């Protein structure tokens, strides 16, 4: 990072909107951590596909790091950390997770959470008041998108009955052709389902 960049952007004040956006982001991360932790203990997950287990464990760590980063930024900006979960999607999880009976159910729920997180942070890049916050949101959104891409591939392979190909390394030659495209459905990441900045803000 060059000096000009630091000097001109980091001194910009963080607004109340920025703090709310950070808290909402942390609330989405907290929810994702909770869901993945619960999912990891489900019998059809913990006794199931080893690569999916690894993905859940690693992704949980990613979301823990994201929550910490968002809360650190919120506190540095003069706000409170958000230790709770996003109320809108917590209600969805409360209904969906206890009803999950298969890996497909868990993957579908995780997909929805990863997508809303990616959309929210993508939109937040354009709303953030400082370059530092734009960089934070912009460095997390692609990772949530990668989680989603991976889950879309897993979902596709589960759907086609090719669960043995959910492996690293996989048998690339045996993968169905549509696996090569299922992980990135849009040329531009959408933001129409982004959470408003106030959705998970500390009240």
């Amino acid at each position, binding site marked *: 990072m060059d000096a000009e960049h630091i000097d001109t952007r980091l001194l910009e004040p963080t607004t109340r909107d920025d703090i709310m956006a950070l808290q909402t982001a942390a609330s989405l991360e907290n929810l994702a951590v909770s869901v993945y932790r619960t999912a990891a203990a489900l019998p059809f997950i913990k006794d199931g596909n080893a690569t999916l287990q690894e993905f859940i464990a690693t992704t949980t760590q990613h979301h823990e790091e994201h929550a910490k980063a968002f809360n650190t930024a919120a506190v540095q900006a003069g706000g409170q950390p958000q230790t709770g979960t996003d109320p809108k999607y917590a209600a969805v999880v409360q209904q969906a997770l206890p009803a999950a009976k298969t890996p497909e159910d868990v993957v579908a729920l995780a997909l929805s959470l990863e997508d809303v997180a990616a959309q929210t942070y993508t939109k937040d890049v354009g709303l953030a008041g400082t370059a530092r916050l734009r960089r934070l949101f912009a460095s997390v959104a692609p*990772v949530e998108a990668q989680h989603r891409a991976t889950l879309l*591939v897993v979902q596709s392979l589960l759907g086609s009955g090719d669960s043995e190909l959910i492996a690293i390394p996989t048998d*690339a*030659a045996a993968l169905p052709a549509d696996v090569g495209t299922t992980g990135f459905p849009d040329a531009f*990441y959408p933001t129409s389902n982004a959470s408003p900045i106030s959705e998970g803000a500390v009240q």
Partner: protein
Amino acid sequence: MSTAPPERGGWEPPLASRAEETEAPGPGRRTFLLGAGGAGAAFLLAACSGENDLSSRSPVDKASVIAHRVDYPGDLRTVALAVALENQVVGVYTSALAAAREGRLGTVPPALTSFLTRATAQHTDHAKVWNGVLTRAGKPALTGVPLSDQKEITATLARAASAADAAALALQLEEQAAQTYLMATYSVGGAFETETAATIAPVEAMHASLLRFLLGQYPVPDAFLPVDRAARPSLLTV
């Protein structure tokens, strides 16, 4: 499916380019798990005359011509860099698909072929949006690859002897693109440019994830997207 890019929020006066200078991307990761294939000796010519060229000149030659005629100041330099990177990827993927069809990459997984086809279309969409920014600012659209590493990339493609080689190069380019867009989100001044970069970076990152999976690598290696492989503005030769 192609989601529309963000609504254009108006072109703001370009700020001085604040893009960071980072180390040039290193050689592509080479985890060759897709069996070795046929020779790629004839690849060089195919790559040099990619379908994104306007004329019979190679992209490198084309860029050298443009370099004497056009200046892209401020944020437009980042935009021009984005177009050039997108054009480079489209050229590489187009040539890789041609090589695959001709059997020069050995056995190519169907998933890699479909990836290259879909990703080419998306990169073309990205280039189109960025070229729109250039033309609205009164600058000509970039249709070649005015990047100083184009010869090196072309040579890497020429050496590709397997589908894994081609996929490793593709991964290198996708990682570079995603990181370049991440850097653009906090280094350009225009709202439209910032928002567009923000909507493209995740897509390039998703491309990279798919390629990692095909190459036998973990698809999400970092909790935060880094910028160590972002393209330097100095890579642009216009």
